[in-house]
């Protein structure tokens, strides 16, 4: 099966609805997870017959709010937030991987947090970037695919 934008959106909404009661709305192209005070980025990679990555960028207020909701706690440590976002990336990536043909393997999630950084995946092309907002805070899901090159 080919990954489509619609599939990525459906998977993201399905995962989100399982962990949060807040609705996830489609956002315009200028929306960014970087609030000026940094952001979180969760990543899983897929290798095998299809190779690429799925990234989930999340603004800090939404990342913290989601973690506290999952933990059912008033506070969440940075580790808790990274863990929650890593699991979100894992679920979105895992469901996308499940739709791919052939044999593929999903990595463990990695989470980066801070300000003024960009995640780059050399040798890949971005297939889709889907921007969402939840109560005004951004979460952005991207799917990247490794480019295949003809060697002459």
């Amino acid at each position, binding site marked *: 099966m080919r990954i489509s934008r619609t599939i990525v959106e459906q998977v993201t909404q*399905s*995962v989100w*609805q*399982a*962990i949060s009661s807040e609705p996830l709305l489609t956002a315009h192209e200028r929306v960014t997870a970087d609030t000026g005070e940094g952001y979180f980025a969760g990543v899983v990679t897929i290798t095998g017959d299809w190779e690429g990555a799925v990234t989930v960028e999340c603004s800090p207020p939404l990342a913290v709010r989601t*973690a506290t909701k*999952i*933990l*059912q706690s008033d506070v969440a440590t940075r580790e*808790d937030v990274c*863990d*929650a976002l*890593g*699991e979100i990336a*894992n*679920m979105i*990536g*895992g*469901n996308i*991987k*499940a739709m791919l043909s052939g*044999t593929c393997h*999903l*990595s*463990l999630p990695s989470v980066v947090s801070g300000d003024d950084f960009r995640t780059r995946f050399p040798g890949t092309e971005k297939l889709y970037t889907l921007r969402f907002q939840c109560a005004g805070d951004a979460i952005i899901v991207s799917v990247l695919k490794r480019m295949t090159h003809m060697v002459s």
Partner: protein
Amino acid sequence: MKVLIVDDSKAMRLIVRRTLRQAGFGDHEVAEAENGKQALDAIGSGAPDLILCDWNMPEMSGIDLLTTLRSHGDRTKFGFVTSEGTTEMRERAAAEGALFLIAKPFTADTFKEVLGAHFP
């Protein structure tokens, strides 16, 4: 009944716990482990009746935990709760002795339907 939840994500272990309660299985004792290796230690010191296990974990994966248990003659009820629910993985899980594979994200209804047969 004693349930062992095995997942490297604290958030997911909490979600599984909560979903067990929502599905009506909240009266049972629940323990947690962060990976297959910790699970083996936990099983050694207090045998669970049911293991709910993630597939992909550091130190020791869920499938490696299952094959290790079965190779030692341990027949504890075992099921996967994983983000990867491909046909291939379901077949491999069943071949190694897992009773079920629940794909994430899941609902309380899914837990009720799949786990109901394994609780008294």
